[in-house]
């Protein structure tokens, strides 16, 4: 119950100032919601199950392109978003079946390669995807202000839905099984946890909302290109956010999203040419000095986050 109250309060605290602020504030709030969705999604496979997935960029780009292509064929926008989520989850089920028997580094690399492959496929099929030229999406016939509010609310709803899923999963048999896998997969398997099914489930959960986020993002910015939506940083930032907030926690990823965005914005504004290095420095400091996240500073509580 406590978690649901925190979720409702958090959404309100974000929504009220965002909707009454100017479009710059709205844009930042929209990105926070997108980041929170990505981080929360990564947490299913990376935090709960302890599998270092770099497939987030693949799901994001896949969702963006699936929705973009479908809308080009005349599918309405919202239906395109839903179908993008469907494409992402089916893709995750297939790919997950292929790579989830790998562990550790091998899994990390295989998941990293998937985004690279999708990017190459998009690049080499210009008839369908526009290739390196990118893809234009239909422009909404709404005023700029209304659009900004609309996309913010959509992203917010998505972030809330992802977090709600995380709360449900955390307290379910699935969440319990995933934590068992994280702590000792062989032991979990011997005790009768169907590890393969659980991992695949977590991988699919980590895909669906990311696919939808990619689709909403594509409609929001109206134009996508492979280096933008298959960016490797899209795969790395979620895990940085989760590390910031605390592995395997419910609200850690959302907190991490806010902290990371504030930091990014400050760096972008003041030191544009070294923003990648600044992100690198956060990562180094985080890994070396704060492996359990910012929340561990506040309260010394070990919630199975010893990964």
């Amino acid at each position, binding site marked *: 119950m406590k978690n649901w109250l925190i979720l409702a309060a958090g959404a309100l605290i974000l929504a009220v100032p965002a909707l009454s602020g100017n479009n710059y504030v709205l844009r930042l709030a929209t990105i926070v919601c997108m980041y929170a969705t990505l981080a929360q999604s990564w947490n299913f496979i990376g935090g709960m199950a302890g599998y270092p997935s770099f497939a987030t960029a693949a799901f994001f780009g896949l969702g963006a392109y699936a929705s973009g292509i479908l809308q080009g064929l005349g599918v309405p926008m919202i239906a395109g978003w839903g179908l993008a989520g469907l494409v992402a989850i089916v893709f995750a089920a297939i790919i997950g079946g292929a790579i989830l028997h790998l562990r550790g580094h*091998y899994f990390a690399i*295989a998941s990293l390669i998937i985004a690279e*492959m999708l990017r190459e496929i998009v690049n080499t099929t210009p008839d369908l995807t526009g290739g390196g030229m990118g893809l234009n999406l239909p422009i909404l016939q709404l005023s700029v202000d209304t659009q900004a509010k609309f996309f913010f609310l959509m992203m917010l709803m998505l972030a809330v839905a992802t977090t709600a899923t995380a709360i449900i999963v955390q307290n379910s048999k699935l969440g319990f099984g995933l934590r068992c896998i994280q702590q000792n997969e062989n032991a979990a398997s011997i005790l009768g946890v169907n590890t393969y099914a659980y991992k695949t489930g977590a991988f699919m959960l980590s895909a669906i909302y990311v696919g939808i986020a990619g689709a909403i993002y594509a409609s929001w910015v109206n134009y996508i290109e492979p280096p933008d939506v298959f960016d490797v940083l899209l795969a790395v930032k979620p895990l940085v956010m989760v590390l910031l907030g605390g592995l395997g926690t419910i609200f850690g990823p959302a907190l991490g999203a806010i902290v990371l965005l504030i930091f990014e914005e400050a760096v972008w504004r003041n030191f544009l040419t070294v923003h990648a*290095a600044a992100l690198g420095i956060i*990562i*180094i400091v985080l*890994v070396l000095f704060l*492996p359990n996240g910012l929340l561990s500073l506040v309260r010394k509580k070990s919630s199975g986050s010893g990964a």
Partner: protein
Amino acid sequence: MIYAQILANGLVLGGLYACIAVGFSLVWGVLNVINILHGTFIVLGSYVALFAYNFGGIHPFVSVAIAGGLLYVLGYAIQKGLVNRVISAPVLITLTLTFGLDLVLNNAMLVAFTADYRKINLANPLGSFEFGPVFLPGDRVAAMALALLLTLLLYWILRNTRIGRAIVAVRMDREAAALMGVEVARVNAVTFGIGALMAGAAGALLSIVYPISPLNSSLFLGKAFVVCVLGGLGSVPGALIGGLVLGIIESFGSFWFGPEHAVTISFALLLVLLFVRPSGLLGKRGYE
């Protein structure tokens, strides 16, 4: 007879790939760390060769020693100062740390050297020679020969020197090696240094083949991944075979499907191989 030419191109490319991957594979096998910095180390080696040539007139083949030495020091320092602090942490942590380090180093190179593609124009190129129906560009073949020589030298060092035996011992069993009196922390640092040295040397050799830019680092890293998975981890012969196989596959793949698909082919191959044989073509089961 076009196939003989394609095979020759593939072998030349493959020798260079082996040299790119062997250091990466060694670090992965011994330290159990995926060194994302490897691609950036290679590019740094290329810049050392570029500046040595432009300002000192030093031939890139000679710069191999300079680049290797400088990168050994850099690699040793990075391992000793930073990576070693989290060496026993899970995969996610070490991988993320080297990723962060890579962002910093690569960004520093972008600022210092810009993203422009540069090239070394040798004053006295070796030209090309014909070998039956096959044309071979002299400089590339020489670079490949040097790359193979370096790889074999590493193999010899691992088998016949004291530190080499210590490295192999740590790769086989870290705890047992420590009990036998091997200083594991020092072996870790030396191994990381050697990995960086091989990257720097490979970079100097590649400087006469590829254009030089910080943007290339992920390309080289991708090749190192594929070669490692093809050949299996931590062994020099594995990297050698993996490199040659990748070179030949890419060469034939670009011929049959078009050069724009070369990367897709090698990645698809990697995924298939990870699925059916995660320990590599030569690898033993149990390393994954």
